[in-house]
């Protein structure tokens, strides 16, 4: 891998993933992520000319389901463990700005 991740990259990735990390954790993570990139670099050195890219590790295809309604209303059970519920709605902290 030509470019290693910087501290800023790591913090940005953490922010995108909504993961709170302190500087010490960011440093440790930086080293771990860069080690993964080294591993990828090793794999990329293999000649793959003429080999079609794969979207999945197994060469099998998606099984399809018939278009039938099979689920029933279970919202009461689901909502019994929700922190806040009103009129069937899940309540969350206000998200509009």
């Amino acid at each position, binding site marked *: 891998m030509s470019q290693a991740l910087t501290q800023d990259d790591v913090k*940005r990735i953490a*922010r*995108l993933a*909504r993961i709170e990390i302190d500087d010490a954790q960011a440093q440790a993570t930086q080293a771990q992520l860069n080690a993964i990139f080294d591993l990828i670099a090793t794999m990329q050195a293999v000649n793959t000319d003429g080999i079609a890219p794969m*979207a*999945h590790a*197994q060469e*099998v*295809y*998606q*099984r*399809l*389901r*018939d*278009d*039938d*309604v*099979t*689920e029933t*209303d*279970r*919202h009461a059970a*689901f*909502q019994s463990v929700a922190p*806040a519920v*009103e*009129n*069937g*709605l*899940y*309540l*969350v*902290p*206000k*998200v*509009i*700005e």
Partner: protein
Amino acid sequence: MKWETVIGLEVHTQLATRSKIFSGSSTAFGAAPNTQASAVDIALPGVLPVLNKGAVECAIKFGLAIGATLNRVNVFDRKNYFYPDLPKGYQISQLAKPIVEGGALTILVDGEEITVNLTRAHMEEDAGKSLHEDFHGMTGIDLNRAGTPLLEIVSEPEMRSSAEAVAYARALHTLVTWIGICDGNMQEGSFRVDANVSVRPVGQAEFGTRREIKNLNSFKFLQQAIDYEVRWQIETLEDGGRIEQATVLFDPDTGETRMMRSKEDAHDYRYFPDPDLLPVKLDEEWVEAVRAALPELPAAMQARFQRDYGVSPYDAGVLTGSRALADYFETVAKTCGQGKLAANWVMGELSATLNKAELDIAQSPVPAARLGALITRIQDGTLSGKLAKQVFEGLWEGAGEVDAIIEARGLKQLSDSGELETIIDEVLAANPKSVEEFRSGKEKAFNALVGQVMKASRGKANPAQVNELLKRKLG
């Protein structure tokens, strides 16, 4: 400076499946909140998506209908972002290998045929709904819509005016409802349009910076939003300003677009292939079975209507606005054997009356065969245009068959020339002044006499016949 507008559209069509794209929950509109949200839809830990065959089949139909390439192997990706109405923290969509690539739609704008190329169409799941009304300062989340199958249809930036964009959106709306993959209900959000709009000086090769107008749910708003946005961009540039790439919303109350506050990183979606879903394979047998079951498409039907019924390209476009309308017209035309007259009645009197009553063609109280029978009676001289309208009123009221209405209401055109001559003689005797004026060269007086005869016959005389007899008597 002269400016050119550049528009590309992204349309989200809700696919008309019974169940969701990755779960067996119902997609029916209007259910009580969260009663149609299963463990998969609310993203409980450990659940896995299972792809709905019906949704894939809708996408295949669409690809075939626009002459696109169907990727025989296509792949689902995760689009990552955080929002409470997206409980998994990612939307399952297709990025690198969508099911449909390419294809085109032909539209008619001001009598000119324009081909709009499509970039791609991909399957994805819809998010839930956030309700920001007052829940003690909190937001309410309804996940009934989460997981509803969508086909996002992306055009090339090939439209050059709001009129072209609206014509394209309408043609697309007609097509997806025609082939039955979407109910087309814009109020319920089944067909939502995002418009990418930019302007550039005429002759410049590069595109200007675009702004994206989100979530337009009517053709009228699409037109208004683009017109406002284009004016705003041109004014900004002419005042020496710059256009920043942005996402904007259209406010129908003010007729203006305004910028959505977009957070930093909002567009860093970190797509990657979804490990929970294997690549989707479309085998030839399936694709060919879907192709064989496709109905005659609007474009083919337009060409056939022009050829078989002699209607104009414009009329053919209007008449194929929906499958129901096209089928109605064709039944009328076949019944009476008069294509042009059938088109005039369907697009004229019938459409106007339906509009006034706020009814759809499928709800027409006048069956197509009866309208055809009415036109037959115009053609054979039984009815004048004016009398035909009275018979039409009878048909609308449900007064029975055409001939029965003519009989019951005494609407038959006077074809007995003896009876008509008697009326004419009476009119001439009663209007010596008009007769005198006509003989001294006043053409207008003739029309006055025709009017008197028509009136005396209570509209039942054949105007052509009246003209002829009058001329003979006065000549």
